[in-house]
């Protein structure tokens, strides 16, 4: 569990940079997929293989990164690579099985992903009882539901790279499954109470997460915590687009807005790398939580 945090100018700066970087990464990832589909869909499965391999190698590479900041930085990119491969694998599966788009416009790959919710729950159940999991939400559930026989969490963390990659994958997976269940007209539907509840809960939780994020003044923890913060906000972005109230610039290929996002991503990447290169302190110490 994180120690008591104070919000400083420094932590605000770190939050802004981390948030911009993770948000920019998600937006760029989306537009890359859209551009491939538009200009040369033939390469998409080869691209997916490339992403899977590079993602895996990136995660593997983090074993040589001593600091948790670098590990988290590469972990996010590795997780994104694997996530790309997973989405394209579902696209391929949809193609092989002739899965159609839905009448409210959901894509085949996400229709298939929706039914992975039980697989998600199985993995989540494991994490719920995995002592070294450090997710604040899981802590909350462990405490409130009295799930653990012993301490809430224990064990020193050395491998932030794969953990960050896994965190990125799990949170993105959760976001998609939730959205797709919300969009399904045979379960809830885009105009259902569930979709509205998801929108407003995500909106509220986003501010809470931003508040928590402001307490982290190192790029390691800050980058990792920015992942759920951005993903929760992304739920609202997706729902607004589904309701026809927002035109996503990465889907509509609005280059003016995308230029700003790409510039923000480039600057934040520079600032993160500059900061991580400068810092000399070692790994952060993770104490047992009782």
């Amino acid at each position, binding site marked *: 569990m994180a120690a008591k945090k104070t919000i400083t100018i420094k932590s605000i700066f770190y939050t802004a940079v981390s948030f911009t970087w993770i948000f920019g990464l998600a937006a760029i990832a989306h537009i890359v997929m859209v551009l491939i589909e538009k200009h040369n869909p033939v390469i998409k499965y080869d691209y997916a293989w490339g992403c899977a391999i590079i993602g895996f190698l990136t995660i593997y590479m983090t074993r040589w990164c001593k600091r948790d900041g670098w590990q988290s930085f590469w972990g996010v990119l590795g997780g994104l690579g694997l996530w790309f491969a997973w989405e394209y694998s579902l696209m391929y599966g949809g193609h092989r099985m002739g899965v159609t788009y839905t009448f409210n*416009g959901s894509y085949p790959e996400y229709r298939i992903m929706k039914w992975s919710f039980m697989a998600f729950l199985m993995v989540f159940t494991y994490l719920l009882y995995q002592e070294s999991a450090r997710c604040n939400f899981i802590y909350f559930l462990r405490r409130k539901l009295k799930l653990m026989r012993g301490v809430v969490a224990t064990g020193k963390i050395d491998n932030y790279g794969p953990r960050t990659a896994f965190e990125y994958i799990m949170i993105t997976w959760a976001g998609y499954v939730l959205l797709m269940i919300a969009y399904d007209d045979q379960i809830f539907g885009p105009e259902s109470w569930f979709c509205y509840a998801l929108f407003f809960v995500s909106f509220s939780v986003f501010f809470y997460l931003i508040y928590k994020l402001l307490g982290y003044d190192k790029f390691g923890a800050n980058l990792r915590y920015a992942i759920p913060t951005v993903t929760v906000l992304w739920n609202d972005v997706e729902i607004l687009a589904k309701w026809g109230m927002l035109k996503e610039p990465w889907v509509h*290929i609005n280059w003016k807005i995308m230029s700003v996002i790409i510039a923000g991503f480039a600057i934040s990447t520079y600032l993160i790398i500059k900061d991580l290169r400068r810092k000399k302190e070692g790994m952060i110490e993770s104490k047992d939580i009782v």
Partner: protein
Amino acid sequence: MKLWKLLPVLLLSTPLACLTQGEIEEADVYKTPYAERMKMAEDKFYAAQKEGKTVTGVIVEGNTLFNNTIEPQNKPYKQPYTQEEYDAVAISAERNSKLFILTEDGTLYYPTPPQGQLVSESEQAHRIDRVLTEEQKKGPKMFTWATLVPLIGREVEVSGEIFPGYSGVKGINIEAIQFEGLYIVGQSEESV
């Protein structure tokens, strides 16, 4: 044993081996820039329209049509379904029941892959180039592709190769599609 260093090279070269002959042939199509491809599809569509070779009709769902549960052919053209029927056939369509184009004169067209293609997927599963009307071009950016499922019950005009089919039901390999309104009703349009 430093051969393990070759592993990344081996892994990275794997995608090249994934390109099958079919994909390479398909890749040639995409050497033409997107805008040019869309212009070619549009020109082809309007040429077919000028020659009266396009097909105009409403998209109807096959299961309820062929088991005589719903009779869109006996309803006013452009109103093939009641709201209750629409809700049902839309679900069936996204569960991949077959869709047809029913013209005003009662001819039924079954969307097919191109002639000669042996292995194919459902025609409802892939994107079709959409030709925008002049009015649509002037408005906000819209989808430049469409799939058949969201268009169920709506009137469309399609161009493509028509086949004699069987037992009165004709086949059509849809190359381009045009329709009024949004692709997904109630949602923002995309420019992809």
